[in-house]
C-alpha cells in the first residue's frame, strides 16, 4: 500500500487569462513508507508545482491525490491535519522565517498543531539536534546565522512536527558543498530515526544519486522515467534529452571505460567509484 500517491493529476496555471500555462499533465506516482526518493528535472518541468499538490496547497484540475489511500479532496477531509503528516519545505525555506529567536521559529509548527507547551522543549531540542546544531542556537536570532545554519533551522521547523512524509524543494540551493552535505545528513538521520518517507526535489544529479533509493525524472510537466538511480543513469541518452546529465563520477567511469579499461560504468556514488578505481589500479599493478 502506497503511503502517498497521485493518480493522473493535471495542473494549469492562470486558467481563463492570457497567461495559461499547463504545468503538469497526467502525473501518477507513489511513495512508499520509509522510502528516500529523488525528483529531478530541468527548471520549469513542474517539480515545484507537483509537490504543492501533495499536501493540498494546490488543487489538481483533474486526477486525485491519496494519502494513506484517502482522497485528500474528498468532502470533509482535514487538509490542515494533512499538512502535519506531509511536511513541505519550500525552496529557500529561510525566507519564510519571521521570529526573533530560533526557538520561536521552530515552535511555530507545534503551535499551529495545538501541542501543549510542556512538550515543546523536548521536541524542539530533538529537532535542532537532528539538523546538527546544538541548543545554544535556540536563543539566537535566525537572521544572524550563516546561510547553511539558517537553512537547517528552517528544516528543523518542518521536522519538528514529525511528518510521515517530508518533501523538500531544492533543499541545498545556494549552499556550499559542506552546507549541502550537512543538509543531506540531517535528512538521512531524520528518515532513519522517525521512519519517515522523504522526497527531495533537486537538479543536482550528484546529490540525489548519492542519497536517493529511487528517482523520478520530470520533463515538461510529465514523468518521463522512474526507477533506481542505477536504472536511470544507465540510460544516459534518455536523461540528456530532458536537459539533465548523469552524475560526474558516472561520466568519469564511462570515459575510462571507452578508453579501453574494464570498469563498471553503472556507478553513481563517490564511494563506489573510489572502490572501482582502486580495484582497477591494484589489478594493473598485479599484471606487471
Amino acid at each position, binding site marked *: 500500500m502506497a503511503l502517498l500517491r497521485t493518480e493522473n493529476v493535471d495542473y494549469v496555471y492562470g486558467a481563463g487569462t*492570457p497567461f495559461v500555462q499547463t504545468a503538469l499533465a497526467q502525473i501518477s506516482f507513489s511513495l512508499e513508507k520509509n522510502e528516500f526518493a529523488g525528483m529531478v528535472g530541468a527548471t520549469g518541468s513542474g517539480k515545484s508545482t507537483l509537490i504543492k499538490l501533495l499536501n493540498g496547497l494546490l488543487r489538481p484540475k483533474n486526477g486525485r491525490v491519496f494519502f494513506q489511500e484517502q482522497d485528500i479532496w474528498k468532502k470533509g477531509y482535514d487538509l490542515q491535519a494533512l499538512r502535519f503528516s506531509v511536511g513541505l519545505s519550500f525552496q529557500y525555506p529561510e525566507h519564510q522565517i519571521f521570529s526573533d529567536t530560533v526557538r520561536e521559529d521552530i515552535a511555530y509548527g507545534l503551535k499551529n498543531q495545538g501541542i501543549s507547551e510542556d512538550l515543546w522543549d523536548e521536541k524542539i531540542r530533538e529537532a535542532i539536534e537532528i539538523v546538527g546544531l546544538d541548543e545554544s542556537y535556540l536563543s539566537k536570532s535566525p537572521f544572524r546565522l550563516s546561510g547553511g545554519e539558517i537553512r537547517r533551522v528552517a528544516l528543523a521547523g518542518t521536522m519538528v*512536527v514529525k511528518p510521515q512524509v517530508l518533501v523538500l524543494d531544492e533543499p541545498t540551493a545556494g549552499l556550499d558543498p559542506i552546507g549541502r552535505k550537512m543538509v543531506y545528513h540531517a535528512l538521512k538521520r531524520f528518515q532513519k530515526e522517525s521512519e519517515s518517507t522523504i522526497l527531495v526535489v533537486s537538479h543536482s544529479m550528484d546529490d540525489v544519486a548519492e542519497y536517493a533509493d529511487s528517482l523520478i525524472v520530470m520533463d515538461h510537466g510529465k514523468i518521463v522515467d522512474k526507477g533506481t538511480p542505477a536504472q536511470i543513469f544507465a540510460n544516459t541518452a534518455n536523461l540528456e534529452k530532458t536537459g539533465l546529465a548523469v552524475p560526474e563520477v558516472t561520466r568519469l567511469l564511462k570515459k575510462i571505460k571507452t578508453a579501453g579499461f574494464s570498469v563498471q560504468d553503472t556507478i553513481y556514488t563517490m564511494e563506489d567509484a573510489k572502490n572501482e578505481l582502486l580495484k582497477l589500479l591494484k589489478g594493473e599493478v598485479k599484471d606487471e
Partner: protein
Amino acid sequence: MNDVIIGQYIPENSRIHRLDPRTKILLTFVWILTIILTNKLLNFGLIILFLLLIIQLAKIPGKSVWNSVRPILPIILFTSFFNLIYTKGSVIGSFYFLEVTQEGIRISVFLTLRILLIVTGCSLLTFTTSLTAITDGLESLLSPLKKWGVKVNDISMMITIAIRFIPVLSEEINKIKEAQMARGASFESKKFLGKIRGILPILVPLIYSAFRRAYELTTAIECRCYNHEIERTKMNRLGYQKGDIGAFGIFIFLFVGIVVSRFI
C-alpha cells in the same frame, strides 16, 4: 489567489495598445476627472458602455479586468455600507436601529460605480501599455519641470520600479502564505486578534524580502553604471499619430458632455 495580475501588461496589437503612452496617461487623468464629475445614473450607464467598448477594442479578456477590481471589492463594500446607513435623508426602510435613506442609496451606488470605473480605467492603462512605454511617456510629460531642477529621470525610474514590483510582491505574498500554510498556519481565523496575529508570519518575511530585493536591485543598477545625470537617448522615439488625436477628441467630447449635463 494564484492569478492576481494587477499592473500586468498584456501584449496585444490593438488600437488602444498602439496609442502613444502620453495620450493614454493624460486620458487616464481626463477619465478620472470625468467620472468624479458624473452625477446622473444615465450618464454612468453611457460611461460604462464606453468603457466596455474600450475593453473590447483593447482585446483585454474580461477575466483580467475582473481580477484587477476584485481585490478592492471589500473596501468598496465597506465604504458603501457605511454611506448607506449613516447618510441622513428621507427614510425608505429600516432594520432594527439602521435606517436606509434614499440619499444613502444614491451616494453608495455612485461611490461604488466611481471607484470601480476609476480602477478599471487605470488598469486599462497598465494592461495596454508596457512599462517602458509608461516611463518614456511620464518622462516626456514631466520634462518641462527639468527647468526648475526637478530630477525627472529619477522620478520616472522610481515610478517604473514601483509599478514593476506590484506583481512581484503579490507573487511573493502568495509564496510566503503557502509556506506558512505548509507549516499548518490557517488564515481563516474569524476572530479579529487571530487575524492580526496571522498577518505577522506573512508581513515580516515580506518586508524582509522587499528590502533584500531593493538591495539586489541597487547593486544591479550600480553595476550597469546607471547615472541620472547622463541624458539617455531612446530606442523608440515617441510621436503622436492620427489615432491619438482621435482619442483626445473622443475623451474631451465625453468630458464636456458630462460637465454640461450637470447643469441641465
